């Protein structure tokens, strides 16, 4: 379902990803771990099409289709979702308006009918309830005045409503206390399904206690340097990333 082939990415003329290869099969959850500066967030951003993140070589195939040529909104309509590490505040755009605009824009692009107001409200109420998000909060500006935990829950709410094929979670655990972490990971786990793949990007192993991955990859200096099962995360927690910095030096 997701195939990243020989991906090279530069940001401000600086090479960040150096021939990254990655395959995530349908229904699988893969974790990407790595030290600061290894290119984790760059991978997330280039997948979502953030301006300034330039793929100079390689492909990102979603069900065989290269998404690199698509605009960000087209990628989203094709089933890609990025949960932001730092969700942005948009004063003046009510969260409800934002959710509805996004949902209907995607449906429209896929040739589906727009949701009626009652249909939409029902969906939001259900999804928000599971994430313990108060409906009053959704009438406020997007993420305005939200705590760190509330922002992350709002990301998962969007994911639940948009029902993507591929979820990329960028440092979703950052800024979360233990209770919020539980709510957020439960939200993510509910969305696990045989039709949906997930890429969980994290620096720490902690999140992977809650969202248990099928496969763990170690990213260092812009490439995947090691791949293993979920136990690899525990190994890393014990030994740190230093060993891989050396491995990359050796590889290059």
């Amino acid at each position, binding site marked *: 379902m997701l195939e990243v082939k020989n991906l090279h990415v530069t940001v401000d003329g600086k090479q960040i990803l150096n021939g990254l290869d990655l395959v995530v099969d349908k229904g699988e959850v893969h974790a990407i771990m790595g030290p600061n500066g290894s290119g984790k967030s760059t991978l997330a951003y280039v997948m*979502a*099409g*953030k*301006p300034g993140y330039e793929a100079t070589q390689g492909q990102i195939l979603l069900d065989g289709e290269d998404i690199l040529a698509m*605009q*960000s*909104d087209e*990628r*989203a*309509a094709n089933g890609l979702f*990025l949960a*932001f590490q730092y*969700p*942005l505040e*948009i*004063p*003046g*755009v009510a969260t409800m*308006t*934002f959710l509805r*605009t*996004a*949902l209907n*824009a*995607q449906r429209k*692009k896929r040739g589906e009918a727009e949701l009626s107001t009652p249909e939409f409200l029902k969906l939001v109420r259900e999804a928000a309830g599971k994430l313990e998000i108060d409906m009053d909060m959704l009438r406020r*500006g997007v993420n305005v005045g939200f705590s760190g935990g509330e922002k992350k829950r709002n990301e998962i709410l*969007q994911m639940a409503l*948009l029902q993507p094929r591929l979820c990329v979670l960028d440092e979703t655990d950052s800024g979360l206390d233990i209770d919020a972490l539980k709510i957020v990971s439960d939200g993510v786990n509910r969305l696990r399904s045989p039709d949906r793949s997930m890429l969980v990007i994290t620096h720490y192993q902690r999140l992977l206690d809650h969202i248990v991955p099928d496969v763990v990859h170690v990213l260092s200096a812009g490439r995947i340097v090691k791949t293993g099962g979920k136990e690899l995360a525990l190994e890393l927690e014990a030994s740190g990333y230093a060993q891989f910095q050396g491995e990359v030096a050796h590889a290059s």
Partner: protein
Amino acid sequence: MNAEIRNMKTNAELALAEAYSSGKARLPGGRTVVALREAAAARFDALGLPHRRVEEWKYTDLRALMREARPIAGAPDAAGIARAKDAGLRIGDMEARRIVFVDGTFVPEISDLTDLSPGLIIRSMAQALAAGDPLVEAHLGKVVPPDREGVVALNTALMRDGAVIHVAKGATVERPIHLVFAATGQTPASVFTRSLVVIEAGARVMLVESHDASAGHQVNTALELVVGDKAHVDHIKITGGPSDLVHVSSLMASIGAHARFNDFAFNIGGGVVRNQTFVRFDGEGTLAGLRGASLLNGKQHVDSTLVVDHQAPGCQSREVFATVLDGESRGVFQGKIVVRPHAQQTDARMMTRALLLSDEAEADSKPELEIFADDVQCGHGATSGALDEDLKFYLMARGIPETDAEALLVQAFVGEAIEGIEHAGLRDALMEQVVAWLRARGA
């Protein structure tokens, strides 16, 4: 330098002076009014049209922008009145009482003067001038007389009609009053309207002005507003029109003690638009909100100039202006706050923000604070910038196409100022105008 050179008149100035001298016999008003007009005409003769060397007009060189003056509009014919039938509908359905002026002349047959609530008097300025109305005699030209104001002088010299509204002490006017100004003539003309609104103590009213004009018109409109102690007045002005319209508007308001005055100016059309607002606090403990939103494209030039004069202690003024600029448009904000020596505990703030959607657009802002009291809070801020690319990416990453993402962000930007309008229906109607403007932009 030879003074003769400075006194060289432009074609427009000569034509306006000629329009006054040849037309004054037909303008309404008795001896007092004639004297007022004569003095104003002499003032205009001395000042001329404002130009860039006049500090208050530095960014809006009206003399250069208005090379020719249009002939003065005559009374509208039946076809012109018919064309004004739907004017001003952009305020939405507020169940407002419509008072309609076509080509600067009050048209009773399409105005609603039935069932005026107790304490409310509405009449035409032309009639009031002709009849020597005591309210007009008492206030006209005296509310906040601006110095060295050529366009106000010109308005006084050539004013023909407008609204005279009186709200008696303690009266609450439930239905908003909508002054609809429509210039529908098919040949370009000049229109001079002048209104006077006097709200007595403790009264409450909402006043909406909408201005629209057909191609090539030059509109000079002025409103004098007297707000009594403890009165509560909302005033909203909406200006639209074709891209070759010149629209100059002056609001002169004096506000009593413990009153509330909410002013909002919405600009969504016109070629050269100047909205100048002179507000004077005459009594303590009053709150005034002066807000505005402008959406500009093409070669539009919209200038919002405010002078807020704190003459009484303990008053609060808030200015919030948002301007969206596309194409080669130019937006000007000039805000002057004066705090007189005894106006202690003044709390005055102004904020102006410009959102530039094009590299060719230009926003100028000039805040001025003149503070003569020592126990005051005054602040001003100005920002200008392009759309936030990170916010746009966030919206697009959720599947929202680029133009829609931009539209959402522009709506949010303008929304902050529009939120200041208390009437929910009007707020929604203006947001719809914003959406329509954005749709036209994206098309």
